[in-house]
């Protein structure tokens, strides 16, 4: 265990997998210079042949990654969530659908690393939190690490996975620190939620960047005598429904904290599952602590109103207790 920044943990995961398998390579815009941080040092270690700077052609190189994967390589592609719209066709029509429509012939071990910048005045064109879109589309695994250890462990699992994976790297977490296992055989499995804090009164599911705020809210509520169970699903496809449902069976209350825009969000989905499958366990209305349904405004006075904050989450928890 070493204390690391989330961003470094992502890089460690990539580096270890590149060392382990020569078929793994990284491509993206300015990845050699590691403009977004997580690729720092990789070009020095792996050189031009395995760290590829691409032209500004997201649709082209997202698709090239699919093709390379289809014939046996294991590409890791770096981009930002907001640039994925540009390459959307290759993500949906090819990466997500190819295996199914070809009856299983295509094996596509490709990882898209989608950095989510938001919360720091990046404005509407650079602040998307688009994982709910890919949850709806299907055929892609959707990964949202919430801690540095998960950042490393899920990245490594993603690279070893034989299916296309999008790993959403939450910009508000990139600078957070935590203990990260050094072992190269440390993997975090997909589909297994992380119970970050046990509790008995309210189940609080927290996604990506809302994890720290959820933990802070849980701590605050603890001081008021409310015991909150905080669950990070870690992967949204596959989703560990069981952990969430058993927690609700225990607590009878559900809050979902989700930095995505609230309509058709991951929070919506989780609430719909609980409302169908654990209805009789519920003792109070479920609460959606997701982002407001607006594009991201530049002004900090407005932007700070958008996302689920510690205060907002705490308020949602209190509502379940009314």
């Amino acid at each position, binding site marked *: 265990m070493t204390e690391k920044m989330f961003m470094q943990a992502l890089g460690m995961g990539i580096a270890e997998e590149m060392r382990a398998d020569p078929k793994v390579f990284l491509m993206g815009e300015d990845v050699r210079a590691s403009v977004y941080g997580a690729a720092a040092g990789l070009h020095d270690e792996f050189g031009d*042949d395995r760290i590829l700077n691409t032209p500004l*052609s997201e649709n082209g190189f997202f698709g090239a990654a699919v093709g390379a994967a289809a*014939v046996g390589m294991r590409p890791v592609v770096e981009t930002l969530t907001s640039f994925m719209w540009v390459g959307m066709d290759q993500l949906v029509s090819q990466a997500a659908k190819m295996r199914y429509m070809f009856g299983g012939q295509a094996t596509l071990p490709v990882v898209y690393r989608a950095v989510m910048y938001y919360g720091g005045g990046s404005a509407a064109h650079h602040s998307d939190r688009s994982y709910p879109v890919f949850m709806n589309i299907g055929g892609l695994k959707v990964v949202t690490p919430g801690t540095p250890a998960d950042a490393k462990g899920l990245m490594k699992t993603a690279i070893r996975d034989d299916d296309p994976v999008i790993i959403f790297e939450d910009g508000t977490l990139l600078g957070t620190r935590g203990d990260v296992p050094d072992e190269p055989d440390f993997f975090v499995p997909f589909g297994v939620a992380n119970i970050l804090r046990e509790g008995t009164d309210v189940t609080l599911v927290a996604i990506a960047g809302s994890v720290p705020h959820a933990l802070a809210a849980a701590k605050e509520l603890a001081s008021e005598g409310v015991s909150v169970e905080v669950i990070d699903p870690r992967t949204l496809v596959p989703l560990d429904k069981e952990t969430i449902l058993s927690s609700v069976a225990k607590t009878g209350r559900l809050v979902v904290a989700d930095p995505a825009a609230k309509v058709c969000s991951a929070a919506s989905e989780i609430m719909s599952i609980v409302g169908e499958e654990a209805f009789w366990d519920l003792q109070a209305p479920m609460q959606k602590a997701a982002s407001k349904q607006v594009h991201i405004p530049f002004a900090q006075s407005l932007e700070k109103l958008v996302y689920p904050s510690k205060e907002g989450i705490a308020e949602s928890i209190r509502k379940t207790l009314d």
Partner: protein
Amino acid sequence: MTLNIEKDVLMLMLERMWRIRHFELKLTEMYGAGEIGGVHLYIGQEAVAVGACAAMDDSDYIAGNHRSHGHPIAKGANLKKAMAEIFGRIDGYCKGKGGSMHLADFSVGILGESGIVASSVPVATGAALASKLEGKKFVSAVFFGDGASNQGACHESMNLASVWNLPTIFICENNQYAVTTSYRDTVAVEHISDRAQAYNMPGVLVDGQDAIAMYEATREAVRRARNGEGPTLIEALTYRFEEHSLGLEKIRKSVYREDKEIDEWRLRDPLEILTKNIVDTGMATQAECDAVSTAVQVEVEEAAEFARNSPFPDESELYKDMFSSEMPVV
């Protein structure tokens, strides 16, 4: 006149072209009988895919589009599995999940057809990237239409293949129309092959009715690609003899091409052209050529029977192939 091409290649091309032709004539018949739904026929364009694929090896890759039977058959696809797929049966190439527009056979380098126009162009480019990164010698070719050439995906892929010097072969089948729209109304340049200049790669305009010309142009592109000299853009000028898709004539309201034009192009039937070439140069007799057609017809009938008799996929297939390993059903 002699041909710079061996007899077995010529006869293979002839056979594969007949395969496509008879396969699709059979489909037309089956469509008429209500056995299958509307599909996009390749009839008239057979020389393009067959000439191109004859210049490639099994270990080379191709990807195609919605006009989707010619490319895989040209690359060596099994007619039974192809027909069963079009019937949506479990013995089809995609276990019935893909249908006519998504034929694929990874085992002989067919990375698959694509219903979304131009969407397979980046994919084929990526296969070529793998070849280069791993120091392999295989090439990757992609077939797309004149309409497709206006998609950003083509621009991005050609640029990428050029700057990375990839062994990609871009084969634009200019059959002059995208559904009802003439390429003269949508492609800003006289010849799509002229666009190769914009990517610093050779652009070759080929008579797409002439399998031998296609073979030769592709052979040179393959040589370049294997030799590390980078991509080539080939424009095959061709024509589809039939409607955009079976059934479309019923809903189409406007006349977008003259009967005269269709008739003229029909005179340039790629099968007749190749046969004449073979016979005129004494590579084989008319009777030998006719025998190829007859043999293929039998094969196609067998494929039809195979398809009809193959079972529909069972309910238990529904969730399979979404992912590489079993996932909880949501």
